[in-house]
């Protein structure tokens, strides 16, 4: 006991502890980081270098050359992972066209190879979520009924009951998910872009994420009742009742009434 206590109070102990901790961190990083990056995108050193050039030309004016971000302008991208890049650039949200309440989706500015190169470079800056595998996002493997339950508990309050979209505060909004690809849905859940919270794998398991994708994919079958009027609820139905239904009928009253007299 004495020996241990004496060693604990040794002058070199703090230094040794710090060194041990550093070794542990670099060791873990050496094992974990490259595997996350290589697993999904199989990025080569060339890709990373090409990504860096693309980044410097297209993203660095806001995010900075080292991707550390600028206060009040753009966030740091260290550790956001390849998934975040694939989502943001792959849906056209980035590069952002103008500052506003949030970056809207717009025509994509890069091809998939360039997006992968950008993702590879950003992923090389620090460990983060990887681009999902095709199997992880395959709607055919998901359970749409469970997806409905997960979706309405976690997603519907912003995106609407089947993902038709909805408003948030101060001009922000939850976009419609009806045209979003399974990969992007998965990545959005994983990385929480803009106002969206992160749904990590402890929160919604990868299987449940795939169920959500299956539920949203099911919506592409269309509404069994006919045209869906935007799937945004009773407001559009009410508007239609006044404009189309009452409108057509009043037009016919005028037609019926115009005959005699």
């Amino acid at each position, binding site marked *: 006991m004495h020996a241990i206590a004496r060693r604990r109070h040794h002058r070199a102990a703090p230094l040794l502890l710090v060194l041990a901790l550093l070794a542990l961190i670099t060791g873990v990083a050496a094992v974990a980081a490259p595997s996350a990056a290589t697993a999904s995108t199989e990025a080569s050193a060339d890709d990373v270098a090409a990504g860096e050039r693309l980044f410097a030309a297209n993203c660095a004016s806001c995010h900075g050359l080292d991707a550390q971000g600028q206060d009040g302008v753009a966030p740091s991208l260290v550790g956001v992972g390849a998934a975040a890049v694939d989502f943001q650039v792959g849906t056209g949200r980035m590069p952002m066209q103008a500052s506003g309440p949030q970056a809207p989706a717009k025509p994509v500015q890069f091809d998939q190879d360039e997006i992968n190169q950008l993702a590879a470079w950003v992923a090389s800056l620090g460990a983060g979520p990887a681009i999902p595998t095709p199997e992880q996002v395959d709607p055919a493997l998901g359970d749409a009924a469970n997806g409905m339950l997960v979706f309405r508990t976690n997603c519907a309050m912003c995106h609407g009951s089947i993902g038709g979209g909805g408003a948030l505060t101060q001009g922000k909004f939850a976009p419609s998910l009806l045209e979003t690809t399974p990969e992007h849905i998965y990545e959005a859940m994983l990385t929480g872009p803009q106002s969206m919270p992160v749904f990590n794998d402890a929160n919604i398991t990868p299987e449940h994420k795939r169920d959500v994708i299956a539920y949203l994919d099911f919506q592409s079958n269309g509404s069994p009742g006919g045209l869906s009027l935007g799937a945004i609820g009773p407001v559009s139905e009410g508007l239609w009742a006044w404009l189309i239904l009452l409108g057509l*009928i009043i037009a016919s009253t005028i037609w019926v009434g115009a005959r005699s007299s």
Partner: protein
Amino acid sequence: MGTKLNSAAAGTANYVDERTSIGGFVKFFARKLFPDHWSFMLGEIALYSFIVLLLSGVFLTAFFVPSMTEVHYEGPFETMHGVAMTEAFASTLKTSFEVPGGLLIRQIHHWAALLFLAAIMTHMCRVFFTGAFRKPRELNWLVGFTLMILGLAAGFSGYSLPDDVLSGNGLRIIDGVVKSIPLIGSYISYWMFGGEYPGVDIIPRLFTMHILLVPGLILALIALHLFLVFLHKHTQYPGGGKSHKNVVGLPLFPVYTAKAGGFFFVVFGIIALVASVFTINPVWNYGPYDPSPVSAGTQPDWYILFVDGALRLMPGWIAGVFPLEWELWGYTLSWNILIPAVIVPGIFFAIIALYPWLEAWATGDKGERHVLDRPRNVPVRTGIGVAMISFYVILVIEGSNDIVANLFHLSLNDITIFFQWGIFIIPPLAFWITKRICLGLQRKDRELVLHGHETGTIVRYDHGEYVEVHRPLDEQEVWLRVSYDNHKPLEIEPELNDHGVARKGYRWDRFKQRLSRFYFEERVEPVTPEELEEARHHHDSHGAHEAAEAEESGERLDSEWEELEDGAKR
């Protein structure tokens, strides 16, 4: 063949008549006259959509199970497989996906419900703006008003029956509104739901209300409403030969029986068309009710939106310092719910219900009024109507504020702040603008009657003067513009009588006088026969000359034009 059929029909009619003496009634009703105008068919739309509701509703009751017993879904709809739900929701899904034609009938029922209330409100607006509620029709206005309220009750109870997330959230809001009523609120809520919300009683209770109580009352009141229409005779739009003592129109048989009978099928057909093309209330999207999830776009059907809008408009604190939720002796008093959801709609509906009497006090008019007003000739009433519509529309838009924000890329918060001010500013502004427009139109009418139509023909006299030729109005046009009720503010007896003693009822009279001044202080007098005579005289001495010259020059122009045309052809 034809004569055989005729004699068979006559024989049957005779058989029935000899046993019921119905012939007299048939003759009476068949000869009843009705004036013709498209706007008189708005009430008919409401009636026919109600018939469509009854027909489709009978179909739906055959499959709906009003029970909150929990089951697990085993039907064909993929996203509901194995999901726990009430029998009410399961049977709605079954009606939609397993009963042949079930979904179409459900959609017909729901679209017809939206149309029913839209038609009722449009019909009410027509009656309001034309003054068709005046004596002797005040009571029928009240009957119609009650029908509107019953329509809201029928709609809301039906909206809640499928027990999906959307309807459950609607019920939750109603529960909150009821609980905000001081002292008795929580007791009423417990009584309604048979205990703590949501319980297992509410669906069966709403079902009875929806298929028995409310439609029964609606049917009875429709009968009364139509009986009173027959009794009072129909109103007519102003025009030559139409007075408060006659009805100018066509007999019910054969013209209106054919028109109305055909019109029923037009209404039914358009509802069916819309129901077969457009989805309504897709409960399979919302899923079975569970008190925890609320999805974006959770709104009531449009006719309840104004309550939702009032709730969304109401701040919890005034200017961030004055709280609207009080705690008194351990009890909570939620002004922030009570004002928008109970007090404001209460006052709004009370004004609508009592309006005929309000206006009768202002006019002091005791006579029967069967000729309708043109809205411009009663500027204050028209202004009040437009102000109330704008108030209502603001609440409806605010009730859909998230949809509006999303559609137009606006800030949800800004919309709410805009309408928090707008609800106080826009209706008075709408009143003032409408009144000014009405007065302007009346002045234009005066101008027209006195000076005639502009013809666009300019005549130049020999001495260089230019004159525009006016064509005098024909008799019908003049009638329409001069023969309206010209109310003046009430004159009342003085406060003190001859003996210097305060008169009984003076305060009430003074109230009526103030009301009357509000209505009729500012008005445009219709052209009197003397003025018309004078104007015509003036025009004749001056205008006949004008017209003759104009005609001459017109002919000259025509011949020149023909020559030009001929030249072009060659």
